[in-house]
């Protein structure tokens, strides 16, 4: 239990923050939002997986990846391929010239299922693909880059190029990937309709629990010796290297971990939203996900979730109310976060925490049954 408190929760204060975010996601939102809004929040929370991954790899590891959309997309596409195959049973696609293959393949004159679609006939293989394919991909990128000590700015630019490559590839290979529209019209998961309200509720909770689990894994890594090494490496890479550590191995590990988190988010996105398209893979979504982490606080796993929710709500709100203002707001947000609040919401909270607590204590001291109230009134047994 002590291990759990210290390592998974990050001590007492971390546990309080964790309980609050769990309460917000698991109780507050489902109680007060209708199913449409809740589904929207569920979609935002899938981005939070990416943001949490970025906190690990950018905030703690100092590696800024501008290609996290790649992993989000790989996870999402893997899940979408499974669902699409299920939706393209020979009976459902009888009007096609080749029944039994996804509709967009039929439109593009492809007559047989390509080999790389075959594994996605089975759910266990799909789940393995969601978790493993992006991680292996990240591993190869990581090995190629970090072993050669490519870091910082160059890494950011190259990951950006990789995001561009994948987007162009997906859009260009329309017959195999669904092109610019992506993979749409997904219906059932093993016969279970994912489009009706009860399924949306269930998926929302699955997503929420997975996110909380990912945060706990993140906490575990950060509080371990590895986490301390990551921070040391970010601040003084040479010293860590001279102390005999294999710096690149740690970097590869944290990059792979972030990729896997993103992929889980992507798969949950597909399940909840019902489609996957290249517009979640490219450079723009990847950089937007960085701003989620930056707004929440690049050193705070839980902050990243709040940051994601806040920016996504803002985006939805402003693009409904004043679409021409949205890019302005987003741009200004980028600049403001970098210039004025480099540690994001979590940093602002840290700064004013003592004042907040003092205020809380003063209010609390007037309320009976509160620790602060009891502290100032001596107990009868002690007097």
């Amino acid at each position: 239990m002590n291990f759990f408190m210290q390592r998974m929760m990050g001590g007492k204060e971390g546990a309080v923050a964790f309980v609050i975010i769990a309460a917000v996601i698991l109780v507050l939102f489902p109680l007060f939002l209708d199913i449409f809004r809740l589904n929207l929040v569920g979609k935002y929370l899938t981005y939070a997986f990416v943001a949490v991954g970025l906190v690990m790899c950018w905030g703690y590891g100092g590696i800024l990846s501008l290609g996290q959309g790649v992993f989000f997309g790989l996870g999402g596409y893997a899940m979408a391929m499974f669902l699409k195959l299920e939706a393209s049973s020979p009976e459902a696609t009888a009007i096609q010239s080749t029944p039994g293959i996804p509709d967009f393949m039929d439109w593009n004159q492809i007559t047989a299922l390509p080999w790389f679609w075959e594994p996605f006939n089975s759910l266990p293989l799909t789940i393995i693909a969601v978790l493993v394919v992006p991680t292996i991909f990240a591993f190869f990128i990581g090995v190629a880059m970090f072993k050669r000590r490519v870091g910082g700015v160059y890494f950011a630019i190259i990951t950006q190029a990789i995001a561009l490559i994948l987007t162009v590839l997906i859009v260009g290979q329309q017959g195999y990937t669904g092109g610019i529209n992506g993979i749409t019209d997904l219906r059932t998961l093993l016969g279970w309709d994912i489009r009706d309200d009860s399924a949306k509720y269930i998926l929302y909770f699955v997503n929420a629990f997975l996110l909380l689990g990912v945060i706990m894994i993140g906490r575990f890594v950060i509080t371990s010796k590895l986490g301390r090494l990551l921070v040391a490496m970010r601040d003084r890479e040479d010293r860590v290297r001279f102390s005999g550590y294999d710096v690149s191995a740690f970097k590869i590990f944290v990059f792979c971990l972030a990729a896997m988190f993103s992929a889980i988010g992507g798969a949950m996105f597909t399940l909840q939203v019902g489609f996957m398209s290249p517009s979640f893979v490219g450079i723009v979504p990847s950089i937007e996900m960085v701003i989620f982490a930056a707004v929440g606080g690049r050193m705070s796993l839980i902050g990243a979730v709040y940051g994601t929710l806040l920016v996504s709500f803002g985006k939805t709100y402003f693009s409904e109310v004043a679409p021409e203002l949205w890019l302005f707001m987003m741009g200004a947000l980028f600049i403001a976060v970098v210039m004025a609040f480099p540690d994001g919401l979590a940093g602002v909270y840290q700064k004013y925490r003592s004042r907040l607590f003092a205020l809380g204590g003063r209010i609390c001291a007037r309320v009976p049954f509160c620790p602060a109230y009891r502290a100032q009134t001596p107990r009868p047994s002690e007097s």
Partner: protein
Amino acid sequence: MDGYTASELMSIVAMQGFAGISLFSVLLLMALGLAIIFGQMGVINMAHGEFMTIGAYTTFLMSTMAGEFGLVDYYFPVAIIVSFLIAFGAGYLTEWALIRHLYARPLDTLLATWGLSLMLQQVFRTVFGAREVSPTMPDWLQGSWQPTDTIDIPINGLFVLGLTVLLTFAVLYYLYKSRSGVKMRATTQNRMMAGAVGINTKKVDRFTFALGCGIAGVAGAAFTTIASTGPTTGSLYIVDTFMVVVFGGAASLFGTIASAFAIAEAQSIMEFFMSGSMAKVLTLLFVVGVLMIRPEGLFSVKVRK
């Protein structure tokens, strides 16, 4: 290559090669500015494409004005200079307001300039509308030159190529021969010592950044002759431009020229034999592959950090 005769194939290579040279010109013009900003200063300017767009829209405005006074044949050289000046001014302001606070945090400049690029895109959309515009071209920029029956080379491409060559030499001369260029290189190579011998390094930084942006403005003016301009035109080229600079080796101008040529030619020659998207994918994959083997780029210059 079945289906083509040898002479047809030669013409294809010549014309696609020249199409590649047009792309090369635009990439190099953009990369020249970025090579100065990123290569010399280490600042990642994600808004570089938008400075190019500033130049393009300036040229468009100049052409509209010239159209009213009937000066369509003569406005273009003036437009190039005005584009340079406006982009230079915008860059100067940006450095003062934004970049100078962030020299110690290169990854944060990336985010801040990305924010700037989003805002500028919205400004363009609000002012000029979402539709693409293009300036009226003077007559001497239209038409084409036909050395043989099957080869057809557009004049505007030749003009842009000429402009690129001229500007490249100007930048080389500036960096290696002029006093101010020497100061700039001194600041890059050893900031402390440059400061100690009396160079105002902050002033040099601001001027360098503005100069890079100004060159992007010229790139924009040149760009209008071969394609139309929309609010997001600049952002289409930004990743390619970064790849050019990184591929060539950040601080090496010669490397930038060579890599712009290699990337542009590879892409446009491959484009003829396969779909444009596959050509782009293969080109970028090749560049990323080379960068994984040689992270410092093709031609690297040792710079003291």
